[in-house]
């Protein structure tokens, strides 16, 4: 943070950057069709608009009482058309960020994960891969490069994935070096495979396997999924997973969906079966940070009802219960959660949308939290405007679980009974420059019982599709 850095400079520099990027990008986009001519036009492909994608440049300014922070972000994602006899496509996505005014101090109001890097600029490559269609036989594909794999675990890795369709059976196998945006993975490796079968019209089954080798830990995970239509509007979904031969969790879910009534109801039961702690890799949920993850069950009921094209309501309840009450602690809790949302479309104003939501958590040992929000969106010609406000309340009262009510008056325990109110307000305006590009401004303010009490954020961005 630079205290003497004037606001004028901070707004002028990012604006200039954005304008410069726009100019360069427009020039490149316009010339693409002319400079690259079709080498494979005989197969029906031209290089006109060979690459499509999106570029976005965004300035973020934050102010709070006597502190401020200014950053720039540039996002680029792209995908090429098929080339090499329509067999290959390349896709990528990345982000570059610059801290315009240097790192925040360790206890600074705006300190976030970007301040933990040595340099003031930071690059992230989300994915960059080549897809090769039918590399060996028909109905197959090979993906090479950095990619996400969503199976039993979500994994980012540099490597290869081969998929093969064999009639009603889809199979895949993948492997490579696991990678992360936040830490060095030191040659951690990952491999896996899976098969998906649709034996009948109303049945889909999946079996997925993944092996993660993380330093001294080797984890093998297996997941089995089944979807089955039971009757007309009634569906069943089940999942069972194993971790290193021990049962990990299972989920059963029934959903009743009445299209004609624009209504749905879902009931699910999830059970986490065994503790996860040091025996597991650091992809599993946060045992190193939050301690042992203890067995629990979670029952959920949610419903939705559309009321014509204009209104819609949805609501739901979750009940979580730690199986062994002796396992309850800061990071393994019982809770009840309830939410309700109400949506209004195109009332009074055409192309407008108002959403009202309320969410309430009642957590044993923490007391409760509530969330209330209203959002409004409206399109007016080339403008898309929106505004909204939200209120969150976190009320925690640790004595509720300790049985030490007699100590409430002690100044040593006063801090354990706290309330945090957070009020947010935002407005945004987006203006369409062309069919493919826009500029937008978003301003948000926040008042809370944390330090700092007031906080403002401005996002100014330019986005273009190419």
């Amino acid at each position, binding site marked *: 943070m630079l205290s003497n850095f004037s606001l004028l400079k901070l707004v002028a520099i990012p604006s200039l950057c954005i304008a410069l990027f726009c100019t360069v990008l427009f020039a490149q986009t316009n010339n693409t069709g002319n400079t690259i001519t079709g080498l494979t036009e005989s197969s029906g492909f031209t290089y006109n608009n060979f690459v499509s994608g999106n570029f976005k440049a965004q300035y973020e300014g934050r102010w709070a009482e006597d502190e401020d922070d200014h950053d720039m972000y540039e996002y680029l994602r792209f995908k090429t058309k098929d080339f090499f006899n329509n067999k290959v496509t390349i896709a990528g996505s990345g982000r570059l960020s610059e801290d315009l005014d240097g790192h925040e101090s360790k206890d600074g109001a705006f300190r976030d994960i970007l301040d*933990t890097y040595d340099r003031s600029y930071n690059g992230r490559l989300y994915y960059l891969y080549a897809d090769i269609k039918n590399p060996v036989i028909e109905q197959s594909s090979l993906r090479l490069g950095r990619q996400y794999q969503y199976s039993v675990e979500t994994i980012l890795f540099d490597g290869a994935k081969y998929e093969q369709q064999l009639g009603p059976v889809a199979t895949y196998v993948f492997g490579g070096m696991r990678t992360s945006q936040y830490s060095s993975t030191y040659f951690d490796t990952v491999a896996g495979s899976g098969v998906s079968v649709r034996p009948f019209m109303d049945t889909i089954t999946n079996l997925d396997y993944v092996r993660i080798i993380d330093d001294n830990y080797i984890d093998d995970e297996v997941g089995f999924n089944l979807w*089955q239509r039971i009757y007309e509007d009634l569906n069943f979904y089940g999942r069972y997973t194993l971790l290193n031969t021990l049962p990990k969790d299972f989920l059963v879910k029934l959903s009743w969906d009445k299209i004609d009534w624009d209504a749905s109801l879902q009931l699910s039961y999830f059970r986490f079966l065994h503790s996860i702690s040091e025996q597991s890799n650091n992809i599993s949920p946060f045992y190193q940070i939050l301690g042992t993850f203890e067995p629990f069950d979670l029952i959920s009921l949610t419903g939705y009802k559309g009321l014509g094209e204009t209104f819609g309501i949805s609501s739901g309840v979750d009940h979580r219960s730690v199986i062994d009450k002796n396992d309850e602690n*800061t990071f393994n809790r019982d*809770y009840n959660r309830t939410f309700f949302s109400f949506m209004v479309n195109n009332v009074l104003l055409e192309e407008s949308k108002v959403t009202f939501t309320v969410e309430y958590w009642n957590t044993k040992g923490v007391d409760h939290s509530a969330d209330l929000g209203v959002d409004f969106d409206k399109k007016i010609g080339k403008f898309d405007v929106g505004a909204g406000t939200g209120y969150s309340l976190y009320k925690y009262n*640790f004595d509720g679980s300790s049985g030490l009510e007699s100590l409430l008056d002690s*100044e040593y*325990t006063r801090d354990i009974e706290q309330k945090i109110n957070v009020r947010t307000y935002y407005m945004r305006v987006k203006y369409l420059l062309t069919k493919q590009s826009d500029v937008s401004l978003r301003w948000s303010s926040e008042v809370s019982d944390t330090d700092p009490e007031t906080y403002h954020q401005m996002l100014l961005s330019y986005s273009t599709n190419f």
Partner: protein
Amino acid sequence: MLTFLMLLGGCKESEIHYSHARHMERGLKDCNTCHNYKEDLEPKWPKMAKCLSCHMKDFDTSNPKSCLLCHTRPGMKIKVKHPIPKKYRDLKFTHKAHLENKVECVQCHKGIEKSDAITLDLIPDMFGTCIPCHKERGDEKIACNVCHKHIKKNRMPLYHEDRWVKHTDARWIQKHGNEFYYNQDYCKRCHNDLNWCVNCHQDQKPRNHNNAWRRKTHGFAASWERKKCSVCHQEDFCERCHTNTTPLSHTASWGGANTRNRHCLNCHFPISMVTCTVCHKSPAHPSAIDSPHPPFVGNCTQSGCHPVGRAGEPPHPKPIGINCTACHNK
């Protein structure tokens, strides 16, 4: 139970033996011969009379086995035309529009000339067949509502063929992370490479991830339901920040030579609190001073060790719920 559920859905098999490959080998290469579409550009299911126009010689009314040439279960009521599955009822597809635009049958029904049975594979695949072709014809031709009656900007595809999911409603915004966690196959139907998750989340945080969240309240949420965090984050994200950032609670009164040192109580009161282990993996600290402690010079209450006006009382509530020697040597 799983077997039962699987069997429930498995009774609707094709009841006709038919091989396009064999018929083509024998010279029936014109689809119109059986499907009779040239006049009104609407292909029809061939009726039995049409089949018998060639197969009459194979058909013997005195021998029921001859029925097996075409039918799988001759004794049962024949139901050649299956009801259209719900997922196709949303289509406003017409053969006529395609035939008028000179689209050949095999362009959509890929591999039909080699097929030995009537299976779902013969129905064109949206991603493999429809979209690439429509894309070639211009971007406006791949809008959802070109082919679908109901799927449009605010109304997304059926959830397992049956549930409409309005991606813009508040419920979906709240639940989509969980839905993805439980059933990625649904997402993959449209977001076939699943890059959408990254593309959207890289610059759009959930609404509750405000400044207070970053500073303090995210810890509560993680303590309630860590699984929700794991939809987007892995552990190294938390570690990176927590190993480099001073918690809000570590203010001047947290500890130090001349400060009101309350960090014992912040960690150990109540005893079930274990938040210090988020950063301090194996907290190793000296024992608390002996109790009662040797006389010190200074003001017992102003220094912050003892309750104001109650110098003789311990600097923590009594009883605290644990054995005294857990902290004190004596």
